C-alpha cells in the first residue's frame, strides 16, 4: 500500500465555481476530501453597521447589494419590516407591483442558478439559454426602475415607480413564453444521463438535519419538509393566490434541482393570477410620514426569497435610523451544512454540492 500525503487545497476566494469570493480550504486525499473549512468575509461590507447611521430609505440600496441576484426580495424584507413596525398601509396596487416583481425576481434568480449550476457541472449551453430568458425579466425591471441588477425599487409604504404603460402586458406575454422555455429546459437537461449521474444522490441529508441546520428554501424542501413562508407565514398578498410548494423526498441535489425548476412554474402561476387581479390605476405610495421613525421596540420579519428565508430583525429606538439592523441571510445559514456534506466526497462533488446549495456571496458576507 502506498502511503499518500494529504494535499491542502485552497478553493477560492478566486475560483470560477465559488460564485464570488467564497473560499473553502479542503484537505484532499487523492481526490477525496477529508476535511473542508469554509472561509468567508471577503465581501463583508458591514451593511449592518452602516445601516445604523442611515435612515430607512437610505438602507434600501444597501439591501440591493446583499443578494444581488434577487434584489427585489431583499428590498421587500426591509420595507415590509418597517411597515409592519409602523403599521403602515400599502396601497393595493403597490402591493401587487411588489408581488409581481418579486415573483419575476424569483424566476430570474432560479434561472441564474440553473444556468450557473449546469456550468459548474460542465455543461455550457444552458447557462446562455438561462441568461437569454433572464434578460427578458431584467429588461422588464429596467423599464420599471431603470436598473438591471440593483433596483432600489421599493420604498417604505409602497414602490417608487408605477408600471409604465404596456408593462403589465409585457409581463403577461412573458408567462406563456417562459412556460414553453421551461419545458425546453427539461427536455434539454433534466433527462441527461451524465447530468443525472452527477447529481443523483449527491449532497444528501435528511429532514432532521436540514431543520437542525436551519436550512431554508429548496434546501429544506428537498427533504420533504413543507415549509414555505409564502404559505406558512403569509405576507404580502400570497394568501390570495393558489400555488403549490414543490417538495422533494430524497434530499439530494437532484431534488433541489427539480424543486427550483418547479418553483419557476409556480411563480408563473402566481404571476398569472396576480395579473388577473391587478387593480386599476391608483397610488403606489401609501401615506408615509416624511421622516420614517418606527416606534421604539423590536421586530423580526422573514420572507421567502429564492434562496430561502431572508429575515430582518430591527431594533428601533424611535429614531429615523435603526438602532440595530440584522439580516438573516439564507445563503449564510444554508452554507453551514457544507463542511458536513463535503467530507468523503470528491473534488468534483464539492462543486456540485456547493452549487446545489445556491449561495450568493454578497449575502453570505453581507
Amino acid at each position, binding site marked *: 500500500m502506498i502511503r499518500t500525503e494529504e494535499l491542502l487545497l485552497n478553493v477560492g476566494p478566486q475560483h470560477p465555481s465559488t460564485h464570488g469570493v467564497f473560499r473553502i480550504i479542503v484537505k484532499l486525499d487523492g481526490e477525496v476530501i477529508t476535511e473542508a473549512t469554509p472561509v468567508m468575509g471577503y465581501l463583508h461590507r458591514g451593511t449592518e453597521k452602516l445601516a445604523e447611521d442611515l435612515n430607512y430609505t437610505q438602507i434600501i440600496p444597501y439591501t440591493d447589494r446583499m443578494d444581488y441576484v434577487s434584489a427585489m426580495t431583499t428590498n421587500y424584507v426591509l420595507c415590509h419590516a418597517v411597515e409592519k413596525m409602523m403599521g403602515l398601509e400599502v396601497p393595493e396596487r403597490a402591493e401587487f407591483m411588489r408581488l409581481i416583481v418579486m415573483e419575476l425576481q424569483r424566476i430570474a434568480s432560479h434561472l441564474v442558478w440553473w444556468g450557473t449550476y449546469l456550468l459548474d*457541472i*460542465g455543461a455550457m449551453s444552458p447557462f446562455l439559454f438561462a441568461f437569454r430568458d433572464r434578460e427578458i425579466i431584467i429588461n422588464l425591471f429596467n423599464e420599471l426602475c431603470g436598473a438591471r441588477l440593483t433596483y432600489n425599487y421599493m420604498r417604505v409604504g409602497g414602490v417608487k415607480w408605477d408600471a409604465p404603460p404596456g408593462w403589465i402586458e409585457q409581463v403577461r406575454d412573458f408567462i406563456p413564453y417562459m412556460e414553453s422555455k421551461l419545458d425546453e429546459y427539461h427536455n434539454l437537461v433534466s433527462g441527461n444521463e451524465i447530468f443525472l449521474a*452527477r447529481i443523483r444522490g449527491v449532497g444528501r441529508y435528511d429532514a432532521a438535519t436540514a431543520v437542525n441546520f436551519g436550512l431554508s428554501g429548496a434546501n429544506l424542501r428537498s427533504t420533504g419538509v413543507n415549509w414555505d413562508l409564502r404559505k406558512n407565514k403569509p405576507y404580502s398578498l400570497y394568501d390570495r393566490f393558489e400555488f403549490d410548494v414543490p417538495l422533494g423526498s430524497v434530499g439530494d441535489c437532484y431534488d433541489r434541482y427539480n424543486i427550483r425548476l418547479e418553483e419557476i412554474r409556480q411563480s408563473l402561476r402566481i404571476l398569472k393570477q396576480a395579473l388577473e387581479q391587478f387593480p386599476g390605476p391608483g397610488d403606489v405610495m401609501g401615506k408615509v410620514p416624511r421622516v420614517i421613525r418606527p416606534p421604539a421596540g423590536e421586530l423580526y420579519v422573514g420572507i421567502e426569497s429564492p434562496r430561502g428565508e431572508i429575515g430582518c430583525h430591527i431594533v428601533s429606538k424611535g429614531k429615523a435610523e435603526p438602532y440595530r439592523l440584522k439580516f438573516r441571510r439564507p445563503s449564510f445559514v444554508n452554507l453551514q451544512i457544507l463542511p458536513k456534506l463535503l467530507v468523503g466526497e470528491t473534488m468534483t462533488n464539492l462543486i456540485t454540492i456547493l452549487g446545489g446549495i445556491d449561495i450568493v456571496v454578497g449575502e453570505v458576507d453581507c
Partner: protein
Amino acid sequence: MGAWLDETLTWGHALLFFLWGVILLMIVLGFVTYAIFFERKVIGWMQYRIGPNRVGPWGLLQSVADITKLLIKEDTIPRKADRALFILAPALAYIPAFAVLAVIPYTNKLYFADINVGLLYYVALSGISTIAIILGGWSSNNKYALLGGMRSAAQMISYEVPLVISVVGVVMLSGTLNLRGIGEQQGDWFWEWNFLPQILGFVVFIIAAVSELNRTPFDLPEAESELVAGYHVEYSGFRFAFFMLTEYVYVYAIAALTTVLFLGGWHAPFPFLDWVPGIIWFLLKFTSIVFFLFWIRATLPRIRIDQLMGLGWKVLLPVAILNVFLTAVYMELFIK
C-alpha cells in the same frame, strides 16, 4: 511522396522532406486556426449567440488575432516552478501530436509515410503527450495543475487501453496495421465501411477518442469549474498556445484516424459518386467528425472522475474485448 522515403537520403531529398513538413505544419496550423473559429461559431449558434464576428470579414481573423496575442504575450514562468520541465512540457506535448500526422493517409495517393505499423505508431506516439501533460502539471508547482495532471494521467492511461483494443477488430478484418491499407480495403458502398461491421468497436473508439482528446464530456484534466484550468493553469503566452495547439492537432489526428479506420477514408458512400475526388470525401467525413466533437461540447455536461474511470474499465474495456471476440467468431465462421 512515400516512395521517396525508400530512396537514399540526399540533400535534395532532405530539403524536400523538410519542405513537406513545413507545408503540413502550415496546413495543420491553418486547420487549428479555423477549427477554433469553427468551434466558436458552431457553439455560438447552438447557444443563440453569433460567435466571433468582429475581426476580419465574418470574424474570420478572430483566431489569428487570438494566436497573435498569445504569441506576443509576456512569457511568465512561476518562480517556484521547475523551470526546465516547465519549458519542456509544451514542446513535449506538441511534438508527438504533430508526429502522428505523418502516418495519416488522405487519399490513396496523398500520404506522407506509409508505415506497416502505422496504427501502432500512432497509438505509441500519442501516449507521449500524457507525459507532457503530467510534466506540465507537476512542474507548475500548482496544486490545481497537479490535480489536473494526475487526472489526465489516469484518464489517458485508462482510455488508451479500450481505444487500442477497439481497433483490433478493424485490424483483424483488414489484416494490416498499415493505415493506407485499412482505408483501401473498405468497400465502395458505405455499409461496407468498418463502422457498421465494427459498430461496437466504433462506438468504443469514439468514446475513448473523445476522452483521449480531453474534450467535453471528458474534459476533467482542465475542468474549469473544478480545477480552474487544470494542468495548464500556470501557462500563458506561447507556451499555453502550444498546449492549445496540441489539443487541436489531436482533434485533427483523431478525426482523420476515425475517417480512415471506420468511415471508409477517401471512398465515396456510393460507387456512382466515384467521380468526386477522394480528397473531398475525406474532407467531408473529417469535417463531420470535427463538427461532432464540437457539437457534444455544446451539449453535454462533464462526467465525474470516478464515473470516468468506471466507464473506461468496467464498460468500454469489456465491450472492446467482446468486440474482438465477436469479430474473431465472425471471421472464423464466415470468412475462412
